[in-house]
């Protein structure tokens, strides 16, 4: 029965409430920290949910673990590192900005700078361009023009 329940819980990501009242810490500030941390951690068995939203048993365990660490006096980073040590970087919803992941973090800004430079170059060219000398339209084109003007 337990296995059936576990399986169900894995299959049903939204089945019930995530954070349960009995998990919460009495100190609102500590609880707020726990919630903030929970929103950065991915449930290891669900599909794209944070442990804060997920109702899988493992997420509940992780939420309790995060709170345990907070009560024990860990800093936010220490708590996150402790979870990553157990489950790997898969649980980090925000990938670390180190090593090859720098490509991910820098892709947007680098692309933006490149695109702006390209756009600026194009704008300079357009500003310096001379208006084209007018060429008389051939028959086909003037027909088209007439059609367009009628629209």
């Amino acid at each position, binding site marked *: 029965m337990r296995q059936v329940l576990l399986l*169900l819980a894995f*299959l*049903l*990501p*939204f*089945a*019930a*409430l*995530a*954070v*349960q*009242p*009995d998990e*919460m810490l009495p100190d609102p500030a500590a609880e707020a920290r726990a919630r903030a941390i929970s*929103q*950065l951690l*991915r449930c290891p068995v669900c*599909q*794209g*949910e*944070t442990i804060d*939203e997920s109702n899988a048993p493992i997420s509940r365990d992780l939420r309790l673990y995060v709170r345990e660490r907070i009560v024990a006096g860990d800093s936010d980073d220490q708590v996150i590192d402790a979870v990553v040590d157990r489950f*790997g*970087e*898969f*649980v*980090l*919803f*925000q*990938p670390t900005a180190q090593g*090859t*992941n720098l490509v*991910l*973090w820098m*892709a*947007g800004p680098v*692309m*933006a700078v490149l*695109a*702006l430079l390209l*756009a*600026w170059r*194009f*704008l*300079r060219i*357009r*500003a310096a*361009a*001379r*208006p*084209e000398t007018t060429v008389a339209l051939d028959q086909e084109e003037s027909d*088209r023009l007439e*059609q*367009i*003007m*009628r*629209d």
Partner: protein
Amino acid sequence: MTAEFGHFALILAFAVALYQMVVPLIGASKGWGGWMDSARPAAVAQFLLTGLSFACLTVAFVTSDFSLKLVYENSHTAKPMIYKISGVWGNHEGSMLLWVLILSLFGAAAAVFGTNLPPALRARVLAVQASIGAAFYAFIIFTSNPFLRLASPPFDGRDLNPLLQDPGLAFHPPFLYLGYVGLSMAFSFAVAALIEGRVDAAWARWVRPWTLAAWMFLTFGIALGSWWAYYELGWGGFWFWDPVENASFMPWLLAAALLHSAIVVEKRETLKSWTILLAIMAFGFSMIGTFIVRSGVLTSVHSFASDPARGVFILGILTVFTGGALTLYAVRAPQMTAKGVFAPVSREGALILNNVLLAVAAFVVFIGTMWPLVAEMLWGRKLSVGPPFFNKAFTPFMIALALALPLGAILPWKRGLLGRSLQPLRGALLLAGSVMALVFAVSTGRSAIAVIGAGLGAWIVFGAVAELIHRTGQSGWSRLLRLPRADWGKATAHAGLGVTFIGISLLTAWQVEDIRVAQVGQTFRVADYDITLASVDEVQGPNYISTTATMQVARDGRPVATLQPEKRVYPVQAMPTTEAAIDNGFFRDIYLVIGDAQKDGGWAVRTYVKPFANWIWAGTILMALGGIISLSDRRYRVAAGVRRVSPAAVPAE
């Protein structure tokens, strides 16, 4: 029998599509009128046949014909009629049939309404459209056939996933597909123009209505999906940066960029090759979206049907079409020379900035979505990219966009002066500043998101109003009503974006959450509201069992609402769902969720007060409405039957 009929109609549609992708193309290159024109009846026939096939499948679902494997797997006799119908596309095979139905619908629409297109261009557009169709007909018939029979039909079906049994989600896919597939028209026009080697103002004018329609449907479809997530998932999240959401968001961003760059092509004969590239990419991303959803390559909550063989097939289609179009682009793009001359500070310049921001934002979403896949393939690392990354990496582009938008929208073509264009916006700037001050005053000690987001949103909204007033000049209100509808559409859509910004930022910053155990009869207080858990009852629904709580909400002793949040169990799929109860309001939603019974009595209860939540969707509806208003502008009416010659057809803006 009906099923075989539908199956046969689908195969016939495939055959017609094969004809339509070859014959008109030959006709167009040889200049044979008959061959070219045969594309039109073919496009209509293809649509009718696919429609017939879709109707047959619908009949099978409505009559619960469990001899069809698909119906058995996704339907149940006890299901309400609306979900029997929506069950047709609530599964992989049926949704692909809907995909080609809409594809052929757009083809037929271009054939019927495209009377003013040059015959060769029309023939090529329809041929390209048919080639996309042919690929997807093959995909359906060979890998995802909805008409397969079961040798021994079971007594009853396995029911539709209960999460999909919801009005919001029932109509979410059709709208999304209208958007995705609508972009195929822009793609077909782009490829046809590349084959012809010419892009001009007329081309841009023909492409714009199709893109506008696609963008509008996409806007509405995405909004519907996010609204569904808001009320169905039980905690009021509205956007998760889930791969499947991103798959619909990337084409939306690119379609928005395409809409704006096509204006430059139409008015100024510049940005031609970029616009063609955008048209190819926008549809390319639609297909990437289909690939992501259908292959399950990036597992997410949405992939209710994933299969590697299908994924490979779609990847093949994606590669052939996007790769082919890009190759053609590489060959032909140098011929598309820009004509207009303009200074960097001008409407053209502003629209280029718009395109840079939207395209780079789409790129950021793309790389974030694909990064886990890349990391796993290259380095064997299993990592995740989620909301915290996207919020940080994506938001700056939206802030820049919001800052520039009202000014860019009011700049004159060719050459403008920032100082002069700012003058009509002084009022808007002042009002946006006051909004920021107000928000700052009421939210002391809270995050900057509220102040910045609401300020930017207000700047866009008031900027749109200021632009309308500016366009009327000295002649007052009567002129306001006679402004071209395109101006109204533009102002409405821009204001909608501002409203959505306000909604997202204020909801994010000011939301109040309360989680507790409540005894029946107990009253508790959340953010000035007194909430009473009056009773909890078991209720039998048509195909589910519900635990329904009755909760009273009061403020200062006056009743505000009585809400009934539910927890349902669908026995056929043994699946529980939460049905939050929401009291919608202009300034706030009260959002109640009932949870499990607790061991020592009482119930887990979640209460949220969500300020300005409805503004998010009100804004998206305004954006879509702006699209409709623009579409109705006589300049873009695709099928203006009798065309009046008016002396001032195009206002000089």
